[in-house]
């Protein structure tokens, strides 16, 4: 599922403000299908890793309670314009995705 992921990284003073928008259905596994009454199987991102300039800055574990198409914002001190930002995720079915951006 290589749907695009959007990353925006901008410097504000000496802190990089990084915003990531992922594309994922984020199914909790507790919702019932309106037509069949069957539970919709869980399908959500479980781990997100972000690196800036090759160093891990964020390592997150999330569950199905994060909204569909997850948004994630975080701030990194000591990053510089031109640093490479990489964000990757893995979901509970083993699907994964990764994207790069450059701090502007």
């Amino acid at each position, binding site marked *: 599922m*290589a749907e*695009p992921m959007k990353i925006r990284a901008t410097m504000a003073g000496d*802190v990089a403000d990084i*915003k990531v928008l992922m594309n994922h259905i984020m199914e*909790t596994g*507790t*919702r*019932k299908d309106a037509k069949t009454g069957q539970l919709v199987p869980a399908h959500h991102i*479980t*781990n997100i*890793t972000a*690196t*800036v300039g090759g*160093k*891990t*800055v*964020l*390592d*997150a*574990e*999330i*569950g*199905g*309670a*994060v*909204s*569909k198409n*997850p*948004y*994630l*914002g*975080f*701030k*990194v*001190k*000591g*990053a510089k314009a031109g640093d490479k930002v*990489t964000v*990757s995720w*893995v979901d509970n079915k*083993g699907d*994964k*995705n*990764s*994207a*790069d951006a450059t701090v502007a």
Partner: protein
Amino acid sequence: MNHQRRTVLKGVGSAAAVGVAVAAGLLKPTAAFAGDRSAFDAKGLDAAMKAIKATGAAESKDITVKAPDIAENGAVVPVEITSNIAGTESIAILAEKNASPMVGEFNLSNGAQGFISTRIKLANTSNVRAVVKAGSKMYTATKEVKVTIGGCGG
């Protein structure tokens, strides 16, 4: 046609990037698939707090939980956590009244600030709780969000 070719190339590129990340040990396959996810299965706030070893965390005024007072749609509730505690290592977000309160845990390192902004699902009107780990201590703060339409489809 050109556009399609681009998409294909992009797909190949990102798959390769994941491969590199795994090789470099950034995405540990074991942690990614077989990690301790008991906190996410925990039912009820007490069990979830216990699972993340945050039982008895001290209330702190240095943590700000920014969320709307009233959320019309519980499926998408913007939440911003700011921790001004020095040496913040991780921020966990819990939705107290959800069947499984654990929303996520964010480990910060290498200059990442005590700040996380995301969007979460709330089953009904509930406190949104942030748990911050700094040093070996746990701190916590809450903010109540009133929900008009629940977001867990129940």
